[in-house]
């Protein structure tokens, strides 16, 4: 018997946690799934004791703790697909589980029109498949960095700005000694300030856009003066120069980064002059790409954001175009953690009280923050001149090692859209499925950045796919690992070349007993998913976990919902048949 939750939330950042908590407080049964070992998402993902002065962290931690006792948490679980079925299927499945049905879920069912059955296909830390079922779905999957290619950008030592931040915040590792920060957007400021504060020598922040300088930074608009001033102060204290209309246009080194070329740019980002700067690390980012794969999979309508990025189209109740599916945070448009939390909260409210209006104070606050987010996106457009930073042999697609010349060839062969360019050049056909190069390839093709069509949001083993198609899966429910192919299968999302490494998510032998310890973060409630046996989240003084014997992805004890580990038989052959569908956008 598989329990059907009222709400499944994908993403444990500020948006997902706020949404899950709001809905749980309203009485819904909630399950939250996140691939990370700890709650927090990209902003609050700190291990124990490593969050000095992160604004908002205490607030987030309170929310995460409150959530831990009220919802099921599946940490370290990657969602690779979502399926939707008609409402009656959900009800039928639920009938067996009627004892679970709270008043709130009865209200949901009565509301009608918005009920569906969703199944999230997940990979647990030990590699085993886990199916999570719910009546409603909140997508709060965040975003990832948008890098631009330039000669040498694939040298080790070149990191995305978010990657440098993740190293620092999630691991306490300063990315390098002599670091250059370059790109565009307000995110460069916290990254540079964080690195400098952690002891790195930050040689400069090179903002390709702007032209205004820190004193007139767009953050100053709309009530972010304090934040902007804080960063300005931090940079000044560490004597970090902040230069606008400058960019890193090339990286140099034999086996790893040794120097970068910094250029002065005109307003279209054409190079005016260059100089060389010795450094060991570059943190670079040109904004964020919202993570919308799961929404696209389930059929949510998208819209192009101001920067051209496709985002999930939501109404003022955070509902997507697909009944029963909500989105909050970056997938609905990049806007930072405050907006993410607020949108999550609004989603939680409208999910649990479908008839009630959005409280005016929340709606107005969201409108303000959204206006601010739009202003920031508009303040940091990507100038077209970056395309001339590339040389013929500059890799555009890092996975398939596709240089600019091959993309040009594809265009000369008549390819005019991204799909054709990809098919001819193989750009975007590798491991990352075009997540890293997608924007660049679209721009180099002269085409709009289309919505991603990725049948698999995360790599998955053939064993897990095969398990879905099996009609006899009762045994799988008892022994999920048993359905997995122990041999390394080819990765269905990966390129077909025989020399390819096998699937990175391929399960290791589940040799380990469950870990006795908690994940280290104080923010991590590490809630037992069994609601009948609630335990307290670890306190900040808890000693960090000896990275005990967890699965490959993380939390030492994969929290799991009893009875949820199996897969269901049924309408799943379509998921398996997508294995070779690949990225066709």
């Amino acid at each position, binding site marked *: 018997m598989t329990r059907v939750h009222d709400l499944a939330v994908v993403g444990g950042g500020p948006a997902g946690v706020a949404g899950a908590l709001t809905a749980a407080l309203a009485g819904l049964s909630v399950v939250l799934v996140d*691939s990370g070992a700890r709650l927090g998402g*990209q902003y609050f993902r700190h*291990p*124990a004791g490593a969050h000095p002065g992160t604004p908002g962290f205490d607030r987030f931690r309170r929310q995460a703790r409150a959530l831990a006792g009220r919802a099921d948490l599946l940490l370290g679980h990657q969602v690779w697909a979502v399926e939707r079925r008609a409402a009656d299927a959900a009800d039928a499945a639920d009938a067996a589980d009627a004892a679970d049905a709270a008043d709130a879920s009865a209200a949901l069912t009565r509301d009608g029109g918005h009920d569906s059955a969703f199944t999230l296909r997940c990979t647990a830390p030990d590699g085993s498949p886990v199916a999570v079922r719910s009546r409603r779905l909140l997508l709060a999957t965040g975003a*990832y*960095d948008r*890098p631009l290619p330039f000669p040498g950008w*694939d*040298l*080790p*030592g*070149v*990191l*995305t700005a*978010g*990657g*440098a*931040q*993740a*190293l620092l915040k999630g*691991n*306490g*590792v300063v*990315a390098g000694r002599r670091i250059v920060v370059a790109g565009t957007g307000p995110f460069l400021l916290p990254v540079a300030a964080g690195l400098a504060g952690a002891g790195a020598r930050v040689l400069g922040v090179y903002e390709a856009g702007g032209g205004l300088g820190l004193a007139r930074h767009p953050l100053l608009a709309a009530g972010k003066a304090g934040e902007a001033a804080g960063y300005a102060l931090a940079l000044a204290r560490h004597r970090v120069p902040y230069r606008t209309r400058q960019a890193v246009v090339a990286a140099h080194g034999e*086996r*790893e980064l040794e120097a970068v070329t910094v250029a002065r740019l005109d307003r279209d980002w054409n190079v005016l002059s260059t100089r060389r700067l010795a450094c060991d690390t570059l943190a670079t980012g040109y904004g964020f790409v919202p993570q919308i794969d799961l929404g696209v999979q389930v059929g949510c309508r998208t819209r192009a954001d101001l920067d051209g990025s496709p985002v999930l189209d939501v109404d003022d109740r955070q509902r997507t175009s697909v009944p029963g599916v909500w989105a909050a945070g970056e997938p609905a448009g990049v806007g930072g953690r405050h907006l993410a939390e607020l949108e999550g909260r609004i989603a939680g409210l409208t999910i649990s009280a479908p008839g009630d209006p959005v409280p005016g104070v929340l709606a107005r606050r969201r409108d303000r923050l959204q206006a601010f987010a739009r202003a920031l996106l508009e303040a940091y457009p990507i100038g077209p001149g970056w395309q001339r930073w590339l040389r013929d042999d500059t890799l555009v697609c*890092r*996975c398939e*090692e596709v240089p600019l010349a091959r993309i040009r060839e594809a265009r000369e062969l008549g390819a005019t859209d991204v799909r054709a360019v990809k098919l001819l050049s193989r750009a975007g056909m*590798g*491991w*990352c499925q075009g*997540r*890293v190069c997608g924007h660049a390839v679209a721009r180099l093709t002269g085409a709009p950045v289309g919505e991603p069509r990725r049948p698999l949001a995360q790599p998955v083993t053939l064993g897990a796919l095969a398990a879905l198609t099996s009609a006899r899966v009762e045994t799988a429910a008892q022994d999920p690992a048993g359905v997995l192919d122990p041999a*390394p299968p080819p990765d269905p999302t990966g390129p077909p*070349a025989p*020399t*390819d*490494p*096998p699937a*990175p*998510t*391929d399960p*290791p032998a589940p040799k380990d007993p469950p870990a006795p*310890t908690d*994940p*280290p*973060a104080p923010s991590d409630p590490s809630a037992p998913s069994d609601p009948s046996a609630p335990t307290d989240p670890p306190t900040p003084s808890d*000693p*960090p*976990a*000896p*990275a*005990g*014997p*967890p699965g*490959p*992805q*993380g939390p*030492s004890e994969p929290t799991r919902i009893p009875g949820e580990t199996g897969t269901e038989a049924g309408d799943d052959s379509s998921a398996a048949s997508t294995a070779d569908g690949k990225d066709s956008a």
Partner: protein
Amino acid sequence: MTDAFEITVDGRPVPVTAGQTVGAALHAAGIRSWRATRFGGRPRGLFCGIGVCFDCLVTVNGRPPERACLLQARPGDEVTTS
């Protein structure tokens, strides 16, 4: 409870603080690449840091490659580079 432990990289010890990923531990130890690309043999290590780019695929304890930036390091892990 161990706060610090070691893993090995091609037999050589690398210190880890509990909670760190394999990728973070390697990067912190100055090991910035641990595999080579298929065609050009170009070195690869961390890039996106959050599991998106797959640059950092790593072999640990002989298992099939996994993303080093997501993989929590465990005492005694044996990393082999190529």
